[in-house]
């Protein structure tokens, strides 16, 4: 039987459409970033890449990711463990609450933190008496990034841990395993790939986050400007090459992240086949 749209013409048409769309919306803009960065040759590109401000921006971007990923890794595992292995009142509510950072616009998140931790905020006024400054300094940028990226790990783990159930762990308990052994020998190996996947997503978002950090950054050059903010700043400054150099750096990081992700998927796929 022949279905509608099964003809060769339709098929070719659809494939062509997909290819054209992908080229227009993904390939050309991505290539454009690198083209613009190198538009005036290698020298200005290199100069922008190695300038003090760019180096500081790279340093801050990595610092944010370096702190955000471990924090959310621990937090995500803990949360997923809690909602999939225990029943307690408010469990459903907690599962919904995890998604708040996804639902709230990052700018709003930034503003919330600013109102809370700013000099005139509820907590901020107490902190400022102790001479502790979170907003308009790097700790604030880490704080909002942790908030924005906190669902990634938990969201990856929860469905998997729910599907796997707790049978293996219960078996472990009957054989006399303690909490830590249980986690290290049974839970962790089971969730390993989902965990790595969650980390990759967290890392990608932590590096690329713009909205929330821009609210709390105070944009002090060489101090609280990360790569995404640097792109915006240089672009406003009519330094197109500089802006696209930083953008190219971010794009390159994204490509590397995607490659790692693809490798992992290929790896898990192969494992599932052999299993």
């Amino acid at each position, binding site marked *: 039987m022949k279905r509608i749209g099964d003809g060769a013409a339709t098929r070719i048409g659809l494939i062509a459409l997909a290819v054209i769309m992908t080229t227009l919306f993904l390939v050309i803009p991505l290539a454009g970033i690198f083209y613009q960065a190198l538009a005036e040759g290698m020298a200005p590109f290199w100069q922008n890449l190695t300038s003090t401000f760019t180096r500081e921006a790279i340093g801050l971007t990595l610092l944010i990711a370096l702190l955000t990923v471990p924090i959310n890794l621990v937090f995500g595992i803990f949360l997923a463990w809690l909602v999939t292995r225990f029943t307690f009142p408010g469990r459903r509510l907690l599962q919904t609450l995890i998604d708040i950072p996804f639902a709230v616009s990052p700018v709003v998140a930034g503003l919330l933190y600013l109102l809370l931790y700013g000099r005139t905020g509820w907590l901020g006024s107490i902190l400022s008496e102790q001479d502790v400054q979170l907003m308009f300094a790097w700790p604030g940028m880490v704080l909002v990034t942790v908030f924005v990226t906190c669902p990634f790990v938990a969201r990856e783990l929860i469905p998997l841990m729910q599907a796997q159930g707790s049978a293996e762990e219960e078996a472990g308990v009957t054989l006399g395993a303690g909490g830590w052994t249980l986690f290290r020998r049974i839970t962790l190996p089971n969730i390993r790939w989902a965990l790595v996947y969650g980390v990759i997503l967290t890392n990608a978002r932590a590096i690329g986050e713009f909205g929330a950090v821009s609210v709390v950054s105070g*944009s002090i*050059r*060489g101090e609280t400007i990360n790569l995404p903010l640097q792109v915006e700043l240089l672009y406003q400054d009519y330094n197109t090459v500089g802006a696209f150099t930083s953008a190219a750096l971010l794009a390159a990081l994204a490509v590397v992240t995607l490659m790692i992700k693809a490798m992992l998927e290929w790896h898990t796929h192969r494992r599932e086949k052999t299993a």
Partner: protein
Amino acid sequence: MSVRSTLLRRVVATAALSMALGSTPAFSADRELLNASYDIARELFAELNPQFIEQWQKEHNESVEIKQTHAGSSTQARAILQGLRADVVTFNQVTDVDVLAQKGQLIPADWQSRLPNYSSPYYSTMAFLVRKGNPKNIHGWSDLAGDDVALVFPNPKTSGNGRYTYLAAWAASNHDNGDDEAATRDYMKKMLGNVEVFDTGGRGATTTFAERGIGDVLITFESEANNIRNQYGPDDYEVVVPPVDIMAEFPVTWVDKNVERNGTEDLAKGYLEYLYSPEAQRTLAQYYYRVNDDEISDEFAERFPQTTLLRIEDAFGSWGNVMQTHFASGGELDQLQRR
């Protein structure tokens, strides 16, 4: 930022950086100064700061570092209220400095009397950027109300730039017709009716006029108009300064609460006083800002056409008064735009 958190940041950032680039930045100054400034002053201070650092090193034998943050000056004022620890502010709106005194009690109310010229080391005025040959024959504010003239300037509600344009037009009209308020309102209605695009900020208006080619006249600060002309083609545009115009002050002050905390009071004062020195005034004039130093003014006389400049305080009473009567919801601006 406390010493400990700075140290921690340095350590972690250095670790991250050395992993990334295999190198460590080796630079440290004795003291740091944070200058919160408006968003088009980036290049200006990038040039002024090294000059000051060199002079301070010579006179005080101390190496200092000047950090910059740039954004709209209202944004900056709000950030300082919320805890941005800027030592000095260099703004383009008097009202935004006033906010620091009124809402935050961070500086005394009489901050304007602490430095010469109402704490404004340089000033500017509004100018018209017109297309080559001035085809619409624009010379003064009254020409902007003509029948076939399309104007571009940012929205007075959202932009200090637009606010000055509106006030300059109003004050110049009042000046010309001997304070006939009714005639001024008629003129303002026509002038506002000629606006082709109301962008939210100065940069947006520039793009509309120069890149999208919309409008006959772009109204902006004289300094900006000259920089735009140089950027987009000195042969394609002309800068016209009207015979009667508004004085746009660029107020500076040190933030008392912050310099006290950071131990930078002498440095902050020294930095702002430096802006009044002949060397700094020359740099400012090179960026098309008008300066008070007589010698430098004479040196650059060609760049700055003679014009009668009206102060906001003289023409409108006070900034507080201006904001209330003209720009508040339901104020003059809203009524003039109701057609």
